């Protein structure tokens, strides 16, 4: 789960990491009131979970509350790379002497946390890593013995942090790591981590991701969960806990396992078709799961044909077939549906469809033939 900047900053503050004082606003009026309460020049920042806000005009300085009102009015509702701005964060402007970069990620290759620090902050860190690899200090942490002062020191010395700022950065790293552990984060990125003209080290941005699997231990964080997509199918899938990803084709795809669904997308593409989505109905797909999945697929007006690819393991193909028939009864879809059933109770499943399915449902014996058929049918329907 990705957090918004303002949520990350509030969590940083709770862990003793310095952040500029600020308030959240959903209307220009709230933005003005926040600017008044904070006093002085403020920054109005669009809250979207996507990079490049600044270039898109989503971050503006405001010298007075009235300016804050005006900027908030501009930014709220703005579309930034497909994300609609629903909130702005109003915070005190900072006197920046230097911009650094700090992050803690879960490095799945090393299976350990990776802490990175650079004196070249405020810019795209992937570019820094490529063009100035020596400017990015990187260090893995043993998850059992933890992040220790000597790790922080090594990073601070090797990232080229200015001497007078070293102590502050070291302290910020220790606190950020404590937050990483405490929140069970998979990412904490602070870009920039600034050194102010009055000598403080402050997190000017906050990118925080929390492990979804750990949310049960963090009810306060779980409460922050919200759907951030504007896509209707993704929203519907999110609400119904279906694993769904929208793609830009016209063949709806569903299967009983992430691997077989990914493979189905590939095989459809090889057959000359364009998949409309990824949808995994789950390893234990039963009648109800099939019905829910079908509902999501059919709600997408782009979809011209469906491919349902089931390899029964725990899943029983006869249950899938029954679920499919029931769902079609209710939903009354007429577009062509290609079904491939294999594995547990496949014979029974195929028999059920042959006997009772409407004419728009066809059975194919293999994944490959099913994909080809779905592509043909989609083309016919165009």
């Amino acid at each position: 789960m990705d957090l918004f900047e303002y949520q990350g900053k509030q969590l940083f503050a709770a862990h003793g990491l310095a952040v500029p004082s600020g308030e959240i606003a959903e209307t220009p009026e709230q933005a003005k009131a926040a600017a008044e309460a904070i006093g002085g020049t403020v920054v109005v920042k669009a809250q979207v979970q996507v990079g490049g806000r600044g270039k898109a005009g989503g971050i503006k300085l405001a010298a007075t509350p009235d300016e804050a009102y005006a900027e908030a009015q501009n930014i709220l509702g703005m579309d930034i790379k497909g994300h609609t701005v629903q909130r702005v964060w109003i915070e005190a402007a900072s006197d920046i002497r230097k911009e650094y970069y700090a992050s803690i990620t879960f490095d799945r290759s090393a299976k350990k946390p990776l802490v990175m620090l650079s004196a070249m902050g405020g810019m795209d860190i992937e570019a820094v890593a490529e063009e100035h690899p020596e400017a990015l200090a990187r260090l893995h942490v043993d998850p059992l013995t933890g992040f220790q002062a000597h790790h922080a020191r090594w990073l601070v010395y090797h990232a080229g942090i200015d001497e007078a700022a070293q102590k502050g950065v070291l302290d910020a790293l220790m606190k950020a790591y404590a937050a990483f552990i405490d929140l069970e984060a998979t990412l904490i990125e602070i870009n920039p981590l600034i050194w102010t003209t009055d000598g403080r080290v402050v997190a000017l941005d906050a990118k925080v991701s929390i492990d979804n699997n750990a949310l049960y231990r963090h009810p306060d964080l779980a409460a922050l969960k919200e759907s951030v997509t504007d896509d209707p199918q993704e929203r519907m899938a999110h609400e119904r806990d279906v694993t769904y990803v929208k793609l830009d084709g016209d063949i709806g795809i569903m299967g009983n396992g992430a691997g077989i669904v990914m493979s189905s997308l590939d095989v459809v593409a090889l057959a000359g078709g364009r998949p409309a989505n990824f949808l995994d109905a789950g390893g234990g797909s039963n009648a109800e799961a099939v019905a829910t999945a079908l509902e999501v697929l059919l709600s997408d007006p782009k979809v011209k044909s469906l491919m349902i690819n089931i390899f029964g393991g725990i899943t029983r193909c006869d249950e899938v077939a029954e679920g499919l028939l029931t769902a079609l009864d209710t939903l009354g879809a007429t577009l062509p549906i290609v079904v491939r059933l294999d594995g547990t109770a496949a014979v029974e499943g195929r028999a059920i469809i042959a006997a009772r399915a409407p004419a728009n449902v066809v059975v194919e014996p293999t994944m490959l033939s099913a994909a080809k058929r779905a592509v043909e049918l989609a083309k016919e329907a165009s």
Partner: protein
Amino acid sequence: MSILVDGNTRLVVQGVTGREGQFHTLRNRAYGTAVVAGVTPGKAGQDVDGIPVFNTVRDAVEATGANTSMIFVPPRFAPDAIYESLDAGIALTITITEGIPAHDMMRIYTHLQRGGQQLLGPNCPGAISPGKATVGIMPTDVFTPGRVGVVSRSGTLTYQISKEIGDMGIGQSTVVGIGGDPIVGSSFIDILGQFEADPDTDLVVIVGEIGGDEEEKAGAFIAANMTTPVVGYIAGFQAPPGKQMGHAGAIITGSSGTAEGKKEALEAMGVQVGITPTEVAEIVRDRLR
């Protein structure tokens, strides 16, 4: 021979009295696996269709000589169950449970590096040595005894590919699902090394997918350490960057972890990669001729 599970497997099931646990325990036993014990705290003295239930894994090991554990407990209790299995000296712990937090797995993985014990999973379908034993949730009908090893990050693709090669009359020595999570106890490399050492495995199929760099590491390992031929498959060419494709680990981050990149990495190391499960089966057939 075969790897991981066979006639010497003595299985204890953690979470044996749960609905799922009980169902698969009995299926595993019906296939021929020696299921010697179950564990559910507080239910010692009961039995599941004749399989004795113990309060702790240690008790089960002391009473029955169990050497392999299968974990079916819910995710919030699963890290404790894994540690319990390791503490009891179980040689191979197979964790079916999906949804274990990453921070728990980082600690468990580091702890495992002490050596001497193996973890399969979490979020894996288990392992089967056709005709000998199965531990996990795989549909046993799909597999036939033979001399091809299969190792996969995906459950359903394991079945799909095993069936396709089976349809050509080619059986499997052992089929292993390592799990689709970002951190799993046994990597492709660990299993490939075990297949390499198995005199009864003539060829190995490695079934990868987008995300991470385990396929790339496997390629380097194969080139450096394996004489047994390896055939590859990668799922997810159509997956867009930044979107998690079902498995927690199946996500392209930035420019790394793409199917194309993995295919190229494997081919650069001499591993022939099929672009559909059917093509993989054809390559296997041709290589074994």
